[in-house]
């Protein structure tokens, strides 16, 4: 499956194709573009990825989540290119026999995708400036710190 795409993500379609006779719980997370970030008005985002590697890493994360949480299915698709306000930037769907595993696995997948996979967000603001994003809010103790806690400051 291709996990990186430069066209609109149809999560309803992905969701429809996600039925599994052994799944009593299916969880869908959609990461969407907010019109503000840290008090600044955002007009749109543009995502860039090192695609072959991002695709491979998402595949591996999904496989790991499937065995770790005993999922019946797991899917993740991330956008590259321009995404408008309220557009879907990333979707994660997980299905398992009962809800706990589907919820836990969904969170596990999105956290790892955000922290580890070579995908970058370029935020465009209403004042005409732009800046490359950094994800790590360092609120949770258990996230993967692959960047040694050095934060990627404003590039503009």
């Amino acid at each position: 499956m291709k996990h990186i795409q430069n066209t609109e993500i149809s999560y309803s379609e992905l969701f429809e194709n996600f039925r599994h006779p052994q799944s009593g719980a299916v969880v869908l997370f959609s990461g969407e573009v907010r019109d503000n970030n840290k008090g600044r008005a955002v007009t749109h985002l543009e995502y860039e990825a090192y695609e072959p590697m991002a695709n491979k890493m998402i595949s591996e994360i999904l496989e790991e989540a499937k065995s770790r949480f005993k999922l019946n299915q797991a899917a993740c698709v991330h956008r590259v290119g321009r995404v408008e306000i309220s557009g879907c930037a990333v979707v994660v769907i997980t299905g398992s026999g009962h809800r706990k595993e589907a919820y836990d696995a969904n969170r596990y997948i999105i956290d790892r995708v955000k922290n580890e996979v070579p995908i970058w967000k370029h935020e465009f603001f209403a004042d005409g400036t732009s800046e490359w994003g950094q994800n790590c809010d360092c609120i949770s103790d258990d996230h993967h710190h692959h960047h040694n806690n050095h934060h990627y400051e404003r590039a503009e």
Partner: protein
Amino acid sequence: MNRKIVYFAGLKKFFGDETSVEVAPEESYACLLEKLGELNPEAKEVLTSCRIAVNEKFVPLDETIKDQTTLFLIPPSSGG
């Protein structure tokens, strides 16, 4: 020996899409990052949090650069 380096996201502002950099024998990936920081001091902070990928795999930065292939400089992820 010259090696091709490919840059992503915010790094492009400092280095463009790709550059060619002279790599000394026995030089480590960490050394290379330091050298790039000297070439462009404004990029130093970002470079300290970068990973390097070779053949679509992250390499330990303290290792000696040995492959002949392109190096991909990976700034901290900000997907989602």
